[in-house]
């Protein structure tokens, strides 16, 4: 289980996230939704070690990893698919994937992991030696997810995977995420596309202005009027 206890994260001088308590159980699929500027990206980046935590604790399977250096987080079984994909654009698809399995624990299983990724995203198999920057948005998203999978994570963190993608590709991406979760990888998804997020998860958190505003069953949450107003203003 990956647990956050009273976590606060700053963005510059301001508090982006304050006093967040959440948890992802092994094999769970959890969604974090919330209007823009709520702090979702800052939160997930902190969970991946990309952003320093101001106070509070990040705990994995009982061990406190809050102060670990960034390059150690993946050894703990955490992998991230960052917002905007952030692929290594001048490296080929294959090299991006191989880098995903850079950590010692994943390197040995590289060949098998590659096979699994190609099975999940067949369109990548034909483009292994293409520079990642030359792919379309949807394909890049697949590479980003594949790269994270190559690290053989126990907790997969995805930050707005549907950003900039057409509805059809978004469906493909979310289908893949469901498959990954079915194989036992815990998933935490930060999403703005509430519709699809609702269909995936059994448990959701609503983040608003840096705090957890609500937690529970997605459909229930979204029909609450104050949540609706936060999104639509009506």
């Amino acid at each position: 289980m990956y647990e956050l206890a009273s976590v606060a994260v700053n963005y510059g001088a301001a508090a982006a996230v304050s006093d967040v308590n959440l948890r992802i159980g092994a094999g769970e699929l959890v969604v974090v939704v919330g209007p823009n500027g709520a702090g979702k990206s800052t939160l997930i980046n902190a969970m991946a070690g990309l952003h320093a935590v101001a106070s509070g604790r990040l705990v994995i399977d009982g061990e406190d990893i809050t102060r670990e250096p960034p390059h150690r987080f993946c050894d703990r079984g955490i992998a991230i698919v960052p917002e905007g994909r952030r692929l290594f654009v001048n490296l080929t698809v294959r090299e991006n994937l191989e880098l995903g399995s850079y950590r010692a624990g994943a390197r040995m299983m590289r060949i098998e992991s590659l096979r699994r990724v190609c099975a999940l995203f067949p369109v990548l198999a034909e483009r292994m030696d293409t520079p990642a920057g030359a792919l379309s948005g949807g394909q890049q998203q697949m590479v980003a997810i594949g790269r994270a999978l190559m690290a053989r994570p126990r907790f997969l963190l995805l930050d707005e995977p549907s950003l900039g993608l057409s509805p059809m590709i978004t469906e493909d991406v979310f289908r893949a995420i469901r498959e990954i979760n079915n194989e036992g990888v815990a998933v935490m998804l930060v999403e703005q596309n509430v519709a699809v997020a609702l269909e995936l998860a059994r448990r959701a958190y609503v983040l608003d202005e840096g705090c957890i505003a609500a937690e529970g069953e997605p459909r229930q949450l979204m029909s609450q009027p104050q949540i609706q107003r936060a999104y639509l203003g009506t």
Partner: protein
Amino acid sequence: MRIALAVIAAALIGLPYLGLPAFYESFGYLLLSAIVLATSWNVLSGYSGYFSFGHGAFFGVGVYTTAALAGKLGWNFLWTLPLAALAATVLGVALGAIVFRVRSLRGELFALLTLAITFVLATIALNAVDGGPGIMVTVDMPKIAPTASGVIYLMMLAAAALTLWTAYAMYHSRFGTGLFAIHDDEDVAEVMGVPTYRFKLAAFAISCALAGLAGGIHAIFVSYVTVAETFSIALAVNVVLMSALGGTRHWLGPAVGAIAITVLLYAFTSGNAAVVGRALTGLILIVVIVAMPEGILGQILKRFRDRAPARAQVARPFGNVNNVNTSGEPLLVVRGVAKAFKGVQALASVDLEVRRGEILGLVGPNGSGKSTLINVVSGHHVADAGSILFEGEELVGRPAHRIARAGIARTYQIPRPFPQLTVLQNVALPPMFGQVVMDRARAEEEAWRWLAFTGLDAKAHRFPADLNLHERKFLELARALASRPKLLFLDEVLSGLTPAEMDDALRLIRAIRDQGATIVFVEHVMRAVMELTDRVAVLTYGKAIAEGVPAEVMRHPEVVSAYLGAAHV
């Protein structure tokens, strides 16, 4: 102050007439020459941030022009001086015209190119002009001082006065402000109306001209010119060192550094001491870059600035604005605009109309293209397809600074103030380069007005780093307003604000519209959008799917599903 200056000036001019040993005139000449070279270097490199490592080259051009014309061809040396300056200028402009065009070629490449040019010129001088042994330059001096070296000293004194005056004038002019803006953030400067290419080229030309002039005088001073001595790399390094030591942000900084270094180097003149001197120079350079990034003068001034109280000026309040035009005619018409970045179609085909005098809300999910649209309209990016008509004129393809001139302004989602300009200078910049070009004094007056309007007048002399997020957003706002735009794009100006600060901001925005500006308001905070806007347009996946009155648009089924998902329609 004035008296002190007059005394110094008198002492400097009178030096040759005091009957002192020739050493004083020579040393004085070296000091002045260093001042000219360091200050002229700084006028381009310190002000704009484009570090030149080739100042020695332009100096050398001046030396060789005079040497060749006066020494070999026997011209009157006074005529050769302007030609020396001209030759250096022509070379600089030619190089700059090529190099500055390349958009991505920033700092370090410019530095290395200018370094290379020193060697190239040395070659040309050696082959075409010098032929090997050097050129002898003997001239007839006008008898305005007791000795020949006295005359040369006076010439360099005149050059130094000219150079310092130029640096001073540039520093206080809109030209200088533009250069400092380029130094801090060239892209934003361009969008605010600064003609960056022209300014860089002009600064380069001035810098080279002054170096060439100094070179011409130097040819007469040394009277025997060789390639090795003229095009040495030491000069290039020393001017950088002098300016960095004294402070590159101030017009007088390089002079301070020049005096310090010349005196220091003088202490090590011969044999082994010269070697130690060079090592010491290197060490000082390292220490200065690392420990004193602002230079000696810069540190001193910083201390004063921190202590000085904010000199608040009473701003004249706005009179009744009679030209509020809410006719509803179209001001900006966007048709079929598309823009793609590496694999992502940010804007698919946007059709949008902004009417004069309205506040139009622009909303949509993250990644729907709102910021991209602003970037395309303001000229930051060029549209792949489509047309953008502003008051009937096509904007697509126009350089950003001309779009700013036409009367369009924008704020940035993450504030991008010029970090090394004060709050006042930040806000004073757009009026200097906007629709009505104002000189610095009037622009600052205008800036005070907008600072009062946004409540920032108490912090006018602070730097953006000292402001909190709320204040920085208001700074963005004040800066965008200062050019009195006809059309203002506000990009998520409310994000990160507390509810109280948000109400402040909304009040301000309404006041801005009442002044006569048309506003496009990109925002996520729905409450604000509903309260503030006259009409709303919704973007998803790079297309505008709805445009109309807020209450209606936000209930539109397509819009609801875009935000909340189909289940809630």
